[in-house]
């Protein structure tokens, strides 16, 4: 058995050497002993203890000791975050879909979402310094998509050693290799990183019923330069490039029609940013940043009857931005920023894959931080985004921190976030010939397209919704977060957070008419209203120098406000066990699909001064609704649920004085599999890795 071999290798590795010492790592959020720096919450460097909004920091040490390779691996073990599995692996934050969390690398957004989901497996974790997660609407600083929160992946050119190499091998022939180099002079730092990831692992594609194990090859590289031009001016350049090859063996089923296809998918993702930073005085500094990114995905398939199928998505995003930080007095600091974005998408699902659909955005933001006393910090900010393709958006936010005493502090924030209509909702021009020839037209051109079809005599009926089609408005969320941090004693801490998000203007696809043939025509309309609310509890305890435990729990309630109103008015029906219809009661309503009421994770850590470490992580997620089975379009107890489940992961390793470190791990020890609902969760997997870090001269 292959697996037996891995176990033996794992055990052999555990017998190995004897030291672990790495001081370059930043501390975790829950580490009570130190105060790490956060940049995402205010777009300025602030100590975590002075931050007014809920922030989670995941440091490189945690990522490494957990054996996390891709961004998904570490995010699924965080409080309030759940993985979603349609269209790649996305992240759901406090019950809000992946569409509503912006993913940044060093403060610059990643693009290339399929149906709103950005596949987080694209992001390798090999060289990152830390991940910051800000919960709550943050559009006042980041604009569109920062509705549920912000996930910022931070790398640092000054980090690392002259040479680091790492190699990992695991189940499904998963091979991950890293090479990291660093050059450093007094004024100049360079860090280069190359990662190669290959697996025979699992893959899921849109509408696919068969979750075939598909080979994936991913290459990514990042290059960073930091150059101090003078003591007051520096220049930072970051580039990142990833290239993915995915072998597809797809069975797409639609209206009873199954189409088998084979082929390749190739995804290229390039990001480059440059910033020039200058400090005029102790109180005034400014930063000029430019950023460009391109996401290019091509799927070439050959269906079983020999018909080629090609799907192309090319998304580019260019931005120029200035941010100026001004300290007016010791108690009052201001941030001013403004910028412009040019964004465009070419897709074979639009009217022409050769024509780029374009949206330009101009924006400005400001944020004021006032500290009337040592105990109280107040932050107010707002951002205005003007768009060429849809209505403009205004995003205010207020937050405060009150430090009652060294043990207790309270944070409160309230803000408005937004998500701009995406290109698909504006420009999609898609007719599914395989499944009844239904069409979906983006809202920006649906009326023209349908009018043109009507002139050709192809339109059967137009529904009242057709006349409601107009320029889409952004989706808005009002979020409120209240957090209580309690440092119980030097070795224990906990925090409690209450949250509520109210969302309006949700963009949903709606039928607007029919063809003469009776086939449906859909477009997008702002109609939905929803909420997510609940609480999170996190805690940590250090038993002694070696052992510690930490964990988190989230309780979540969600709902579609229009559906709740309909249930209350007695117009929603469900079926009883005999299949007879009856009125649905409000207490049968389970809220939005794909949301779980409970999520709990517990992590037990062992770290010895000699460099041994061991961790055991258990993650529980309660059931979630996946399918409406009784035809009322409202999720209730009679519908189809994915079962709640537990996964247990463990990793152990050690570091030697000479820079060598080894690790072995098992993910999903209990071998939990739910192929239909958790296609991203393979069964039990084993891995082992070895890493060598050239020791730096101490000078």
């Amino acid at each position, binding site marked *: 058995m292959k697996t037996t071999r891995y176990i033996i290798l794992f055990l052999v590795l555990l017998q190995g050497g004897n030291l672990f010492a790495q001081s370059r790592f930043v501390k975790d959020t829950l580490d009570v002993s130190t105060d790490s720096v956060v940049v995402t919450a205010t777009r300025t460097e602030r100590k975590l203890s002075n931050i007014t909004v809920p922030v989670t920091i995941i440091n490189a040490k945690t990522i490494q000791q957990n054996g996390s390779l891709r961004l998904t691996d570490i995010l699924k073990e965080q409080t309030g975050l759940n993985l979603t599995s349609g269209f790649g692996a996305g992240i759901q934050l406090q019950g809000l879909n992946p569409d509503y969390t912006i993913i940044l690398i060093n403060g610059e957004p990643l693009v290339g979402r399929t149906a709103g989901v950005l596949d987080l497996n694209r992001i390798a974790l090999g060289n990152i310094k830390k991940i910051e997660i800000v919960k709550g609407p943050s559009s006042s600083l980041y604009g569109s998509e920062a509705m549920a929160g912000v996930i910022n992946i931070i790398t640092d050119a000054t980090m690392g050693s002259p040479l680091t190499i790492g190699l990992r091998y695991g189940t499904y022939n998963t091979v991950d290799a890293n090479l990291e180099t660093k050059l450093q002079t007094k004024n100049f730092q360079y860090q280069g990183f190359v990662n190669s990831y290959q697996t025979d692992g699992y893959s899921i594609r849109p*509408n696919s*019923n068969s979750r075939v194990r598909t080979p994936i090859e991913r290459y990514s590289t990042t290059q960073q330069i930091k150059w101090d031009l003078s003591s007051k001016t520096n220049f930072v350049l970051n580039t990142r490039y990833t290239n993915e090859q995915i072998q597809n063996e797809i069975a797409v*089923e*639609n*209206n*009873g*029609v*199954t*189409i*088998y296809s084979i082929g390749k998918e190739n995804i290229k993702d390039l990001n480059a940013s440059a910033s020039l930073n200058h400090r005029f005085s102790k109180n005034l500094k400014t930063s000029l940043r430019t950023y460009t990114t391109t996401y290019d995905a091509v799927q070439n398939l050959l269906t079983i*009857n020999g018909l080629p199928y090609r799907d192309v998505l090319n998304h580019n995003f260019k931005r120029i931005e200035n941010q100026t930080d001004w300290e007016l007095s010791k108690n009052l600091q201001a941030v001013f920023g403004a910028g412009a974005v040019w964004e465009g998408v070419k897709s074979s699902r639009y009217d022409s894959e050769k024509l780029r659909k374009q949206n330009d955005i101009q924006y400005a933001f400001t944020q004021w931080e006032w500290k009337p006393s040592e105990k109280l910090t107040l932050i107010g900010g707002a951002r205005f985004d003007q768009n060429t393709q849809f209505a403009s958006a205004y995003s205010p936010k207020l937050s405060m921190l009150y430090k009652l005493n060294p043990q207790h502090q309270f944070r409160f924030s309230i803000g408005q976030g937004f998500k701009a209509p995406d290109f698909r909702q504006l420009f999609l021009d898609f007719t599914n010939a395989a*499944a009844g020839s239904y069409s979906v037209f983006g809202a920006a051109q649906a009326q023209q397209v349908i009018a043109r079809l009507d002139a050709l005599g192809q339109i*059967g009926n137009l529904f009242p919704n057709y006349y409601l089609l107009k320029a889409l408005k952004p989706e808005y969320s009002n979020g409120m977060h209240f957090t209580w941090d309690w440092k119980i004693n030097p070795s224990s801490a906990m925090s409690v957070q209450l949250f509520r998000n109210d969302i309006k203007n949700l963009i949903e696809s709606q*039928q607007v008419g029919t063809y*003469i*043939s*009776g086939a*449906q025509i859909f477009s997008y309309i702002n109609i939905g209203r929803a909420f997510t609310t609940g609480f999170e509890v996190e805690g940590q305890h250090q038993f002694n120098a070696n052992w510690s435990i930490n964990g988190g729990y989230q309780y979540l309630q969600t709902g579609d406000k229009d559906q709740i109103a309909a249930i209350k008015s007695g*117009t*929603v*029906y*469900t*079926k009883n066990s*005999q*299949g*007879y*219809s*009856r*009125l*649905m009661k409000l207490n049968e309503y389970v809220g939005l699909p794909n949301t779980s009421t409970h999520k709990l994770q517990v992590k037990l850590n062992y770290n010895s001064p000699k460099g041994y470490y061991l961790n055991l992580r258990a993650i529980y997620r309660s059931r979630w609704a*996946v*399918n*409406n*089975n*009784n*035809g*009322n*379009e409202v999720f209730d107890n009679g519908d*189809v649920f994915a079962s709640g489940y537990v996964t247990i992961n463990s990793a152990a390793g050690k570091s030697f004085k000479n820079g060598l470190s080894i690790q072995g791990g098992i993910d999903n020890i209990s071998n939990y599999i739910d192929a*239909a609902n958790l296609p991203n969760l393979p069964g039990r997997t084993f891995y082992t890795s070895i890493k060598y870090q050239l020791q730096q001269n101490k000078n």
Partner: protein
Amino acid sequence: MKMNLKKVAMGLGLSIALVACSKDEGTEVVVPVSAITVKDLAADTVTGLGLDGRPQSALTTTYYSLVDNKVIASTDAASTKWDIAFSSTKILINGGTSGPGIGGAFVYVGLFDALKTIPADSNFATDNSNAASYAIPLGSGKAWYTYDGLTTLVSPIAGRVLVIRTATGKYAKIEIISYYKGGVTLPATASVNDKLFKQRYYTFRYAYQPNGSKTF
């Protein structure tokens, strides 16, 4: 073909009782009719999977008499012996382009039991196959079912009653309970084979008012 017709009432006339209405002044008299459940009525069942991936069948139509609570031979398709007919998810009413009767239908949103009297302003539509327009509209989410492309299951919509004018101008109401053999919609996890071969079996309950009134 297994067909299990559960005859709740043998002679419909016998089951009709005169009951004083408890409502208001109590002077009105209603004539309640019993509901009849028809189980696993085969409607163009699947014979196999075609090369194109579509289910294959003999493209048959099952004709049904609500008056006599029985299947009518397809040789009588051009008669008024049948009231309603089924062929996969398509439902025909004996009238318009579908038959020589004067049948029509509309979809009532509400509960089967709560529909005591057909509203006076109801608009009965008739089949017109030339314009692909049917009294019971075709398609997912249109009339009585939704189709889920991911699970490939057909689920009857809760709170939908098909109100029927029969071939001879009497009235009936129908609630569709299941589209799968056994009378229960298959679970999402059912095998591909079950989903393919257990579909197109209608289980429904109906009430037929033989006296010509619109009250059940």
